[in-house]
């Protein structure tokens, strides 16, 4: 991608994010109830309340409020959470790492496994193996995530007692002097069930996509050429077909993101994984508007940036694409 095009894309994302920010501001003013009582915790002392009100400009005219709102966003002042009584920024910082850990691990694992299995399914098209894999992938794709997570929790967590029922750590181990290895193992142990949930639901869509992409690549002339040259089956499959077929899977990571964010939030909620998604659901249930707003904006920003990265990556791996 040329630097100029990249700059345009970047500006475009900034503009879109600005529109989302603005929409949220006006929706907030349109919603029933008084903005002050929504943004400022009524349990605070009068001095603290006054400080917050003037910081967010809630005593000024609407257009000034808007400018202050935008300025506060860029300086990271999202207000104070009602429930925690701490600045929203600090809470988000604590939660973000947990979400990134769970999310990237599951996405990377599912994408690699999906590409690998999809490749095999397409290669053995209409065999029993392909049928089993395709149907399982379809089922994974339409599984109702919370229910599947609850089933895992019930079966593997409660009945067989193999995994913890929630959280990320065993408090005794982390407060006490546990070794690093013991702590890492403890974290991994807590991560198995949520990871399994996200892995399985994402695997379905990557597998199906890779399979259909591979099927269309296999009909191209250069595959026939490769066969005519007498190349081995595995070489044609892995070196010639799969490499090109995997390209659409990269773009689909961006498109799939919305689906996996929804799923991620639900998974975090069920396994009490202390991430952004769970915090958003928690904030919405408790009418903690400042926290909910910050979580939402963060998710929107991540989605936009991730799609830009996918565009870049796509242009990098496929030189035929020019923007």
């Amino acid at each position: 991608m040329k630097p100029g095009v990249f700059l345009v894309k970047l500006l475009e994302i900034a503009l879109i994010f600005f529109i989302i920010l603005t929409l949220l501001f006006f929706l907030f003013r349109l919603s029933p109830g008084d903005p002050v009582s929504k943004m400022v915790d009524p349990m605070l002392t009068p001095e603290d309340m006054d400080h917050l009100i003037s910081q967010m400009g809630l005593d000024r005219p609407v257009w000034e409020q808007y400018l202050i709102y935008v300025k506060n966003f860029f300086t990271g002042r999202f207000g104070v959470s009602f429930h925690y009584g701490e600045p929203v920024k600090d809470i988000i910082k604590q939660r973000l790492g947990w979400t990134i850990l769970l999310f990237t691990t599951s996405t990377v694992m599912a994408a690699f496994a999906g590409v690998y299995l999809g490749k095999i399914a397409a290669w053995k098209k209409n065999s029993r193996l392909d049928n089993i894999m395709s149907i399982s992938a379809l089922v994974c794709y339409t599984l109702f995530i919370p229910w599947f997570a609850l089933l895992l929790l019930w079966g593997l967590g409660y009945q067989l007692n193999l995994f913890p029922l929630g959280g990320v750590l065993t408090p005794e181990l982390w407060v006490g002097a546990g070794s690093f290895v013991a702590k890492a193992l403890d974290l991994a142990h807590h991560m198995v069930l949520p990871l399994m949930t996200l892995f399985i639901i994402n695997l379905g869509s990557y597998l199906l996509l890779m399979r259909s992409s591979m099927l269309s690549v296999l009909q191209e002339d250069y595959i026939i050429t490769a066969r005519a040259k007498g190349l081995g089956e595995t070489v044609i499959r892995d070196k010639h077909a799969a490499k090109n077929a995997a390209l659409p899977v990269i773009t689909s990571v961006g498109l799939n993101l919305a689906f996996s964010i929804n799923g991620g939030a639900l998974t975090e909620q069920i396994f009490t994984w202390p991430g952004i998604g769970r915090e958003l659901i928690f904030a919405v249930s408790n009418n903690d508007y400042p926290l909910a707003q910050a979580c939402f904006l963060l998710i929107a920003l991540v989605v936009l940036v991730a799609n830009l990265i996918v565009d870049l990556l796509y242009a990098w791996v496929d030189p035929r694409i020019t923007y």
Partner: protein
Amino acid sequence: MLKTHYIHRFFAGWQIFIKNPVAKAGVFIMVVFMVMALASFCLPLLGPMYDPMTGIDPDIRLSTPPSLTHWLGTDNVGRDILAQLLEGAKVAFIVGLSSAFISIVLGTAIGMVAGYAGGLWDAVLMRAADIIMVMPSLVILLILASLFGQFNIWLIVFIIAILRWPAVSRVIRSQTLSLKQRPFIEASQVAGASSFRIIFRHIMPNVLPLAFLYMTFRVTSAILVEAALSFLGFGDPSQVSWGMMLQWVWKSGHMFQAPYWLIPPGISISLLTLAFYMLGRAMDEVLDPRLRRQAQG
């Protein structure tokens, strides 16, 4: 003349469609759930005890396993789980089909305008579609719920539809682009037809069948999003949906004790969405003969 053409095409398509094993399975599952949804209309005949929302068995005030009077058992206040499951089937069909219908109408209109008008209109509408398409709809519904409080079921249906038109509009746009090149469109332009007339009189009849075939995928996502929202406790409190049932199992702390209550609603959501998805994929194969050949090997 035009009508017989469509009917003929429909039957020809149906013949190919129903031979496909994926389509067969999808149709079968869907018929089962339709029967369930229809059966929910008979619930009032069984007396107030079987009302899915307010019916309480006076002898049972807690969750009980399946029995003769309650085939799937009762929930924690003594309501019949089967009755709730049937009611949930009805709600799922209503939510899925109406939301999909609205997004089809929106997506078709926007796709036709973008494709026919081209230029700036096309650029702006399709860029908007791209952005809405990548936004997680559940997260958007959650932030709206935090602003406006609990939604009723129709509002949820409408919001899901607004968030889910882009995929339809892209298909319709590309179809419109190819139609635009056909002589009959040029002829009506020369004859002085307005753009409005060309879009709705000449292009629409040609893209509409395609739009309705893509409806199945929208049904799947609408049912899943509504169920997830209800599961998290932001659904319409006056409706018994499958997501709501799961929320009750979870929130009342019965998920480890009452598998007979936990399993049916989740299976239903997964199977019904699977059925719609399978229908969609099978239709794709009918529409795209290249895929059909592949499927038959």
